[in-house]
């Protein structure tokens, strides 16, 4: 059974701080790892990672994957209150046509002014 573990479960920081969120996984026939941001409602897509060591970057957010050690990190620099959300990590396997994602429980990030 595929498994995703995120840490920490929650985190409180002040504006301007840099945070690192962690995601470790176990999956049969790994295909990709994805990061989502969830505020009030639907998760919104941040990154998809398929190759080790290649950093994906979008503004103050960046992410990298280590397929040997089976983990990924999501970095947020110069945090803002608008970064407060639950950050979800998910993995997919390459089995068949069903393309299912297995999600972790998420990290609740609170950025205080």
């Amino acid at each position, binding site marked *: 059974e595929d498994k995703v573990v995120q840490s920490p479960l929650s985190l409180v920081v002040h504006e301007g701080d840099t945070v690192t969120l962690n995601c470790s996984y176990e999956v049969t026939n790994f*295909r*990709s790892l*994805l990061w989502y941001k969830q505020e009030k*409602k*639907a*998760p*919104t*897509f941040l990154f*998809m990672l398929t190759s080790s060591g290649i950093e994906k970057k979008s503004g103050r957010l960046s992410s990298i994957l280590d397929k040997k050690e089976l983990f990924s990190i999501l970095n947020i620099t110069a945090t803002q209150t608008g970064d407060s959300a*639950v950050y*979800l990590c*998910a993995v*997919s396997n390459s089995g068949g*046509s*069903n*393309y*299912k*994602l*297995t*999600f*972790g*429980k*998420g990290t*609740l990030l609170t950025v205080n002014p």
Partner: protein
Amino acid sequence: SQTIHQWPATLVQPVGSPLSLECTVEGTSNPNLYWYRQAAGRGLQLLFYSVGIGQISSEVPQNLSASRPQDRQFILSSKKLLLSDSGFYLCAWSVLRVSGYTFGSGTRLTVV
């Protein structure tokens, strides 16, 4: 462009009542469709997925069922709701494996 619609946004239902949540996708053909449940604001649990009309796979045994009567329509149902069915239900679709999921806006169900 592709869009996904999910309704209603919130629902309060008594124990033992039926349930029907609907999800429709526009702007794409033959999508994979999914129903997830999220309890206590964390972790998404896959309930059902469908790779085509009439094709439903269930991930966990439960009090719910799903149907796909049309290519871009996915329905989550229950004949008799339980208190434990409360949660945030999310519909999602994917076409290309390289693009991840796109989620609907979700339905917050409270069973009382």
